[in-house]
């Protein structure tokens, strides 16, 4: 135990650096993923059939294949066409992956809003677009916060898979430390501790946002 604590403390600076990279990967990828999710959700809800098809094919492929395959495929695919750092290739791969799940969250939230809301807005002379932006989206966004928070935590943990394209984030560092010292259990435990801390912080933030948005409104 004391040896574990020694290892934990002696690697703080290295793992803090790596945790920062994990955090950057997560935040960048989730911001892009949220944009993808919103656009794909609207495509799925649109009355234009080809847009539905594109959205369904995208979601189908992403949900139907493992993330690690997507990361490898995008990394070796994208970097053949454009010059891209591993960080950006990884971020984009993670964003494309989470985007599919976030699209489904947004779509579900939008569809869960009573259709009387749209009818009331339209009966007052609002256009579909005005009704969407002013009446439907604000309510849907609030409803999507809990599942979105959940998806963000999954995204944070999924970022560990970009270790395999050589980004020095938490898991990548623990792999190399484990290999160098042969103290595998120790360094994978340390990795777990760092992820746990990050997830707890995320959870607190999500809960705060949920509470704030809940004041006096249905």
């Amino acid at each position, binding site marked *: 135990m004391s040896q574990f604590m020694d290892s934990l403390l002696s690697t703080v600076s290295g793992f803090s650096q790596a945790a920062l990279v994990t955090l950057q990967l997560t935040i960048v990828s989730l911001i892009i993923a949220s944009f993808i999710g919103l656009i794909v959700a609207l495509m799925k809800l649109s009355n234009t059939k080809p847009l539905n098809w594109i959205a369904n094919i995208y979601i189908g492929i992403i949900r139907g294949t493992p993330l690690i395959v997507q990361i490898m495929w995008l990394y070796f695919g994208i970097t053949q066409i454009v010059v891209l750092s591993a960080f950006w290739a990884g971020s984009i791969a993670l964003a494309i992956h989470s985007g599919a799940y976030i699209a489904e969250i947004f779509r579900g939230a939008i569809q869960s809003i*009573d259709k*009387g*809301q749209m*009818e*009331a*807005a*339209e*009966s*007052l*002379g*609002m*256009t579909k677009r*005005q009704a969407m932006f*002013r*009446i439907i989206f*604000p*309510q849907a966004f*609030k409803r999507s916060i809990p599942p979105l928070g959940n998806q963000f935590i999954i995204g944070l943990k999924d970022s560990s898979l970009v270790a395999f394209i050589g980004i020095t984030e938490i898991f990548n560092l623990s792999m190399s430390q484990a290999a160098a010292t042969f103290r595998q259990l120790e360094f994978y435990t340390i990795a777990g501790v760092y992820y746990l801390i990050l997830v707890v912080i995320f959870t607190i933030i999500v809960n705060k946002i949920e509470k704030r948005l809940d004041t*006096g*409104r*249905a």
Partner: protein
Amino acid sequence: MIKVKNLHKYFKDLHVLKGIDLEVKSNEVVVMIGASGSGKSTLLRCLNFLEMKDKGEIWFEDKEIDPDKVKLNKVREDIGMVFQHFNLFPHKTVIENIIEAPTIVRKIPKEEATAKGMELLEKVGLADKAQVYPEKLSGGQKQRVAIARALAMNPRVMLFDEPTSALDPELVGEVLQVMKQLAEDGMTMVVVTHEMGFAREVADRVVFLESGVIAEENTPEEFFTNPQNEKAKQFLRNVL
């Protein structure tokens, strides 16, 4: 004000409206009654194109409304609607609900819209609830806010789709009172309701629908004391 000619509406294979002819004049209160499934709500919703007609003509102020040629949102600006389930915007306060359309659709300055909105709230007896969210209101209060919200657009005609059907019995009166006041002020109204007392007292004309056709159209006095149509007689026996 509103003219409907040979209106047909289908839901898939179900023929809901089978050739409706109806005219509503300015300042007139027309009450539509009939059993559930008779098509009265569908007819009302066709008037502001929440349901699209399949055949026939709908005229509003001497112009035929062709949904392919005119912007429906423009038409709806002048047609207020009150729903059975209120459909207030839960993320907005009472006053925000009321000024939403005037400010966004009519581009009226917020201060002006708020002043007008407060006047309307005064009229429906809810000025003290302006800053409250809808979830804090009773059903009757919600419906009065919904009426004020529709009135805020200065509509030429008001449509009511069973405005008291979702209310507890003791809350029906306050909503009917507001509607009665509105009728006395000369508002043109088309009302779908099961409130026979209201129909008898306030309506200028009663339209009885049965299986998608207008089976009887009469003054309330004649309709309630001496109905001509066999189905109407039976309906009145059941509800009175």
